[in-house]
């Protein structure tokens, strides 16, 4: 499938490659922060996106956590949505037709409780028209291992990657959890297991308390921290991972502007994802694309690829 518009020779080349998938520009929307894209159709031009990554899909529908599910924190927010989603079958029948019509690569974020579940979702997505890639969320608890997240153990992370790769007919990105002692160990493990790209970071685990009621601010007690607050941690991990692996790295975490995105690319990211910023500015991803284009033009870059990993260190 070719998603590319004929390229204007006077515009800088913003295309980048995620494994065998070429995208028109390095900006994607992060899973769980952009619904199924349609929510934004009146507010921005969806066709401009590098790729859309949809809310995490599980084998069966999930109703999610009781409220409150979100709470604001300093320059960030915590969420404990509880992976609410319609399940892979309804996703394919109800959501894919619209997404496919966008003419933008659709990357499906998947999650599971067990290796078998990851494998089965991937199998069901194989051959579905419009699915251009799979992003594996490994921050989920492994029910068999007492709820330890797949993403905190290199062996489990590799096993999930392998299970998905076995069934996938599109490039597979593995999305890392930042809640680990050494992110490069996990990155290397999933690369060795066949990941075509690595995206990071998912949310940091955090908590907030409502003092007047002396209760946790989230019904789930703990939640995932996202937004500008986590950007320094994300940037550091992207830098470390990009120096460790040879597959493309996709940077995520607190990106709100083209400047933020370009910093991630300098640190080694081939592409970026916009998450929480979508809530504050529904046009955020489009503005990041425009800003990257303007930067490339001002800096007279023939291709945006030339800045990937271009951080100057003496």
């Amino acid at each position: 499938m070719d998603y590319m518009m004929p390229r204007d020779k006077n515009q800088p080349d913003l295309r980048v490659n995620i494994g065998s998938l070429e995208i028109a520009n390095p900006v994607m929307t992060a899973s769980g922060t952009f619904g199924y894209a349609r929510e934004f159709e009146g507010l921005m031009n969806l066709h401009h996106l590098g790729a859309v990554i949809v809310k995490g899909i599980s084998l069966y529908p999930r109703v999610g956590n009781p409220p409150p599910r979100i709470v604001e924190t300093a320059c960030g927010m915590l969420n404990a949505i509880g992976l609410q989603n319609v399940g892979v079958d309804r996703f394919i029948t109800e959501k894919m037709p619209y997404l496919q019509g966008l003419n933008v690569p659709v990357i499906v974020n998947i999650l599971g409780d067990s290796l078998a579940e990851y494998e089965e979702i991937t199998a069901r997505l194989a051959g579905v028209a419009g699915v251009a890639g799979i992003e594996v969320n490994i921050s989920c608890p492994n029910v068999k291992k007492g709820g330890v997240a797949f993403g905190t153990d290199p062996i489990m992370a590799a096993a999930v990657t392998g299970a998905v790769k076995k069934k996938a007919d599109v490039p597979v990105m593995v999305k890392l959890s930042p809640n680990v002692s050494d992110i490069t160990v996990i990155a290397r493990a999933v690369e060795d297991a066949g990941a075509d790209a690595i995206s990071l970071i998912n949310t940091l685990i955090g908590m907030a308390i409502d003092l007047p009621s002396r209760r946790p601010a989230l019904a789930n007690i703990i939640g995932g921290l996202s937004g500008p607050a986590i950007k320094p941690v994300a940037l550091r991990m992207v830098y470390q991972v990009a120096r460790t692996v040879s597959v493309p790295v996709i940077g995520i975490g607190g990106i709100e502007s083209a400047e933020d995105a370009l910093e991630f690319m300098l640190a080694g990211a081939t592409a970026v994802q916009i998450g929480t910023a979508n809530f504050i500015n529904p046009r955020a991803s489009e503005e990041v694309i425009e800003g990257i284009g303007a930067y490339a033009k001002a800096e007279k870059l023939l291709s945006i690829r030339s800045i990937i990993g271009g951080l100057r260190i003496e």
Partner: protein
Amino acid sequence: MSQYQEKATVARIEQFANKNFRLTLHCPQIAVSAKPGQFVMIRTATGKDPLLRRPFSIHQTSSGGGIQIYFKVVGRGTEILSQVKKDQEVSVLGPLGRGFRLGLNGPAIIVGGGLGIAPMLFLAKENCRLKRKCSDDLILLGAREKNELEHLLEDFRRLGLRLLTATDDGSLGHHGFVTEIMQSALPPGCTVYTCGPEPMMARVGKICQSQGIPCQVSVESVMACGMGACLGCSRPAKDGTYTHVCLNGPVYDAEELQWTI
């Protein structure tokens, strides 16, 4: 359903009670497409803190492209918003959510309590316009004390509808809860519209249910996006699932929701 992210200009900021403010914003695209019961999400800070937009019901719109919100300072976001100056720019996203189902036959009984009065003016106005005949509509407004109510009354009075008030301290109208004056005031074939504190809405819903009267409620929830993207604004629905207030609400039939009274 058109939605816009507009750089609105502050046309006016008025302080009513100690912490209650009315803000008039010029944002013509939102103003022209807004429906009663819908809301807007406003960025209060220019920096990254507070990070998220804040939701506010649309109090009324003007043909000149203005919208009004009526709000109370309860935290940092509303504090910042109370300090905007005329001509300042503010980012407004809207109109959002499903509003009230209007133009139904029979009298409309509009019950607003506290900040829940905010959406009721727009509702009363627009409902009148749609129904043409609204002489048997009734507006019931409750608040803690007189000065939380009186500044708002002028615009309601201009509608020429029947209007009753109640205050917790008796400083204006009935001394007690607005639900007390409502109980006896429900004519046959009416529809009740309500917005206010949860216990009040639960009570209103219960009264309506016992009398077999349809009741539309406008509820709140914490929100990050206001447009269905984050799934953060969940609220337990009657059927055991969750509903998303920003998308399926904020207006519901009282029966769709779970109430704890």
